[in-house]
């Protein structure tokens, strides 16, 4: 890509300075925009096909105008082998091009065959049989076999490191080769949504024997079966992948039968969002992740780029409420917090109307979503005050409510960079008589602060592709960003645990839907959270980049079928 034509005109320099200095101001003045339609979930996993051939009509074009794609992400990976990676999202983004999963899921939540061409499950969803694609080769030329899959599952089961979902690893009982192309995976508990979990790029089938041989070094020289091979990693600078010319076994999701059209993918990283955006605008890169909300409107108007907003499925951005700590152990106080929260104000002032309000613990993209929650609470500070007064919290001399000599104090926990709404929430709560404080944390200190169980209203959100993964955010055993058992004490916690376990193993789709709707109602009736907004993920890319596929979580991109028009 070529940069803009140089110009020495004084006014262009002056204009550039003025434009730059007023970036934030211009964003503040942005008019509300219609958000791109959110993807919807089909509600049903496609029935396991025996084979899905790519059709000529769907096939990608025979050539690409440019052969090199430059992707600019936010954080540099620590490792890019699926088995040894640490969990950073860009690790999966890179690994998704090098490794292949047994099945794939696209943005429409459709499941496609991957390395597994067909599958069957037992009635109770504890035994799964996969037919493995034939003719597949690791990048080092070694044949990929049914035994490779068994080796992978056994390694994952026995090793805590790796980015695959912890809950899934914990239920793997064993795997065995049935015949040359068939593998049987046995689980210790029913897992009706196993295919969705296996479609996670973090569950790409890693080369266990290679990892055993070279250890952690596999993370810096990974060998997979995917459409791109690892070429080089210049630490702090870039990761380069090159086309795998032998890749002819791609998933039908890619609608192509041959190797990728792109010759090379270069991944660069900067945690500075404005740098990422500037690199796109300067024509240095083709794709940027995590576009800042305040820049979405401006970049959308630039004819050189396409901006896409994807509603991320999972648990919307929210605040948990600690039911074991006073004063949030009182139902009225928790309800008052919800009524006092001005979601529309947050969405307008902090997120420039680039997101939509949330009403419960599950994204509206799921078929299990409970629409009745939308009517349950509205923004009503008067009602919040009334509830507090009914609970005996009376205004004190400094405006903070008191009861039995105690002040109405709550601490909101913020994970820096992710929960900017907490300051509006703080003001909302102060307006109805709370002494609301914000504790700012980041990364591990956030996890620690929340897991300490000392704070009332920690901010949170989660991205997942199946309602059954609510367990990881709400069950007392955890498996989430932190064990929610720290928050839900007594009857609410026990009841919710039982409901989650029951729904998780439900096979019947209708029963399952009902059970998850009951869970959502239970959570909101007991005011266990403050729903804030549905999380949108904005990406921008060069207009001529076509054919890439977004995964089921909305987070990861597959570039096997990408090309420049």
């Amino acid at each position, binding site marked *: 890509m070529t*940069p*803009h*034509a*140089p*110009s020495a005109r004084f006014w*262009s320099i002056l204009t550039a*300075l003025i*434009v*730059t*200095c007023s970036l934030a101001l211009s964003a503040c003045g942005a008019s509300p925009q219609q958000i791109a339609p959110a993807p919807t979930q089909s509600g049903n996993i496609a029935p396991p096909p025996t084979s899905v051939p790519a059709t000529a009509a769907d096939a990608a074009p025979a050539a690409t105008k440019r052969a090199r794609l*430059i992707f600019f992400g936010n954080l*540099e990976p*620590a*490792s890019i082998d699926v088995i*040894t990676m*640490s*969990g*950073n*999202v860009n690790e999966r983004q890179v690994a998704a091009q090098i490794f292949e999963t047994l099945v794939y899921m696209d943005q429409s939540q459709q499941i496609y065959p991957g390395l597994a061409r067909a599958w069957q499950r037992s009635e109770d969803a504890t035994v799964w049989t996969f037919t493995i694609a034939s003719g597949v080769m690791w990048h080092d030329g070694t044949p990929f076999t049914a035994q490779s899959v068994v080796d992978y599952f056994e390694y994952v089961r026995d090793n*805590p*490191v790796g*980015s*695959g*979902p*912890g809950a899934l690893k*914990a239920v793997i009982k064993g795997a065995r080769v049935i015949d040359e192309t068939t593998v049987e995976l046995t689980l210790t508990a029913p897992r009706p949504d196993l295919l969705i979990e296996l479609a996670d790029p973090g569950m790409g089938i890693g080369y266990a024997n290679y990892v055993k041989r070279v250890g*952690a*070094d596999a*993370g*810096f020289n990974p060998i997979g079966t995917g459409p791109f091979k690892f070429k080089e990693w*210049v*630490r*702090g*600078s870039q990761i380069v992948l090159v086309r795998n010319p032998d890749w002819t076994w791609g998933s039908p999701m890619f609608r192509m039968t041959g190797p990728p059209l792109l010759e090379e993918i270069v991944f660069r*990283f*900067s*945690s*500075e969002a*404005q*740098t*990422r955006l500037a*690199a796109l*605008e*300067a*024509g*240095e890169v083709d794709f940027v992740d995590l576009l800042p909300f305040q820049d979405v409107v401006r970049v959308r108007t630039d004819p050189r780029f396409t901006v896409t907003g994807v509603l991320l499925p999972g648990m919307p951005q929210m605040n948990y409420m600690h039911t074991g700590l006073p004063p949030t152990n009182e139902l009225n106080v928790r309800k008052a917090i919800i009524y006092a929260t001005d979601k529309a104000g947050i969405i307008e002032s902090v997120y420039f109307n680039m997101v939509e309000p949330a009403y419960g613990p599950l994204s509206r993209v799921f078929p299990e979503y409970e629409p009745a929650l939308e009517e349950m609470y509205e923004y009503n500070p008067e009602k919040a005050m009334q509830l507090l007064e009914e609970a005996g919290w009376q205004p004190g001399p400094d405006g903070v409510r008191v009861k039995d000599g105690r002040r109405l104090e709550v601490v909101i926990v913020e994970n820096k960079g992710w929960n900017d709404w907490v300051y509006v929430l703080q003001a909302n709560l102060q307006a109805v008589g709370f002494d609301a404080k914000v504790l700012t*944390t*980041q*990364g*591990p*200190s956030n*996890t*620690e*602060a929340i897991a300490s169980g000392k704070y009332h209203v920690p901010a949170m959100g989660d991205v997942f592709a199946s309602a059954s993964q609510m367990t990881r955010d709400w069950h007392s*055993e*955890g*498996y*989430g*960003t*932190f064990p929610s058992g720290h928050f839900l004490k007594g009857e609410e916690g026990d009841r919710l645990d039982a409901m989650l376990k029951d729904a998780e193993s439900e096979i019947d789709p209708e029963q399952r839907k009902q059970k998850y709707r009951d869970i959502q109602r239970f959570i909101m009736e007991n005011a266990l959270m403050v729903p804030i907004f549905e999380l949108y993920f904005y990406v921008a890319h060069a207009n001529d980049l076509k054919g890439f596929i977004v995964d089921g979580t909305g987070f990861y991109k597959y570039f096997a079928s990408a090309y420049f028009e």
Partner: protein
Amino acid sequence: MSAYLLQRLLLTIPILLGIVILTFFMVHLTPGDAVSAMQGQMKMSAQQMEQLRQALGLNDPLHVQLGRYLMKLIQGDLGRSLFGGQPVALLIASNIGATIQLTVAAMVVAIVIGMPLGVLAAIKRGTLCDAVSVIVAMIGVSIPSFWLGLMMIQLFAVTLGWLPITENRSARGLIMPAAALGLAEAAIIVRLTRATMVEILNADYVRTARAKGLLDHIVLWRHALRNGLLPLITMIGMQFGTLLGGAVVIENVFARQGLGTLVTQAVINRDFPVVQGCVLVAATMYVLVNLLVDILYVVIDPRIRYS
């Protein structure tokens, strides 16, 4: 001189040991550990987290962890990253070149801009030229380098298209980061050079040199500036540490390879071996630069002798 150097080199050992121990406790006193950082995406249960902590040795008492680290350090082993498991020495080796390149380039920018401006301001003191250089220096000191970096990106990369943002392995890619980092230092050098030169230009020996009929430029460069270099070199040596710190920010802004990017991520992730290794290397560089400054004193001013 050589005895002095040996003594100084030996003194660096307890200094570096102190830095290692201090860094160790500072990193471990901050809430959270590497496993907490991994938890964000890996979605482990409490049991799995404990299993991982055990495997990484994070459950051992602090003094055991410190002892283990020091024992390895004595053998020249900086350990492995808790994220990905790459050897810390390799991580540092693959990043340090870029950081030194940026720091030295920034220092060159600072000296090339700062010294002539400072001398000019001193010669023309009380004039508009002096006032402008003082104002420029004030602005330079006041502007945060990351903001300056972002402004330069907008102007020189996005609007004018003259310089690259992400192609950080080329010489052109070094221009903006070095300028963003070096301009604040240039401002400091302008102020110090001006103050030093004003004082020296009023000194008796300068007046004597002029009275002997020496040309102005000979008086200035041979007599005044050479004597003015001592405090400047001291300050430049001390600023090396500041530039290393500034590189942390600038490397992030320009998506550059380097210790800054490495250590930032390691601090966020509580990747103790990487943080420790980076701090150790940066401290060693700082100590060595200061030693070099002391040696330069002798070269510049033959009256100075170390015993």
